[in-house]
């Protein structure tokens, strides 16, 4: 019988994989992909809590919808920054972009 724990463990795994991607990848676009995975994990959690607590109260889904909008805004601005950086520095490796380090 499916329980809330299954959903939570699944989303925890998805979140951790996304976290690893964000921290370990060199390519900036790949880092953004990792962030997408993490946001998806959050959404799965929200939907899981909605479904398993009280489906008549729609709060979890409404939160997830707002997360969709935020994710889209994040990707749009993030990728625009990546393209802009690529145009100037001819690289999108995250550890080469150290202009503001000190």
């Amino acid at each position: 019988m499916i329980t809330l724990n299954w959903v939570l463990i699944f989303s925890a795994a998805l979140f951790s994989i996304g976290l690893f991607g964000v921290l370990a990848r060199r390519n900036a676009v790949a880092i953004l992909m990792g962030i997408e995975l993490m946001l998806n994990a959050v959404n799965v959690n929200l939907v899981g809590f909605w479904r398993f607590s009280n489906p008549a109260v729609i709060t979890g889904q409404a939160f997830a919808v707002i997360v969709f909008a935020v994710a889209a805004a994040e990707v749009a601005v993030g990728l625009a920054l990546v393209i802009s950086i690529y145009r100037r520095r001819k690289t999108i490796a995250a550890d080469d972009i150290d202009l503001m380090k000190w």
Partner: protein
Amino acid sequence: MTGMDSLFLIFAVITLISAFLVVTTKNLFHAALWLIMTLFGVAAIYVLLNAFYLAVIQVIVYIGAIAILMIFAIMLTQRVMNPSGRIFNKNWIIAALLGAFMFIGLVIISMQTGASKTTLPQISGQLDTVSELGQALVSPNAYVIPFEVASVLLLAALIGAIFVSRKR
């Protein structure tokens, strides 16, 4: 309800494997395709959890728009077919350990709560979640402020992103 259990497990495993391939594949175009697979798996899990509207907009927004945008950005920034250099940075072992600790910690926390005993409540037949959501998103005593702010946020993101990516 064993059918639903097995479906959930199948989709969860597919999703997690694709997610793992997203962060480890060298070819970024392939990574984007695996990302699409992951997002589709998450949409299937939404369907299993009765969040139909979210499942559909997951496909429309993530696969139809965000993934396409990512592929465009990949095309604009890198020679995909001959990826050069390393995939990971120097600290990838620390990152992997951190991810593993995160996962273990989250699992332990969720085990300690009552989540392992919470089973699926029945959904009444006439509950129309789409209509409920529509009312909640625009009614003044629910989420109208986040809803309008989200639209302003998207507008701001549009203006900012175009300003940054435009050729000067």
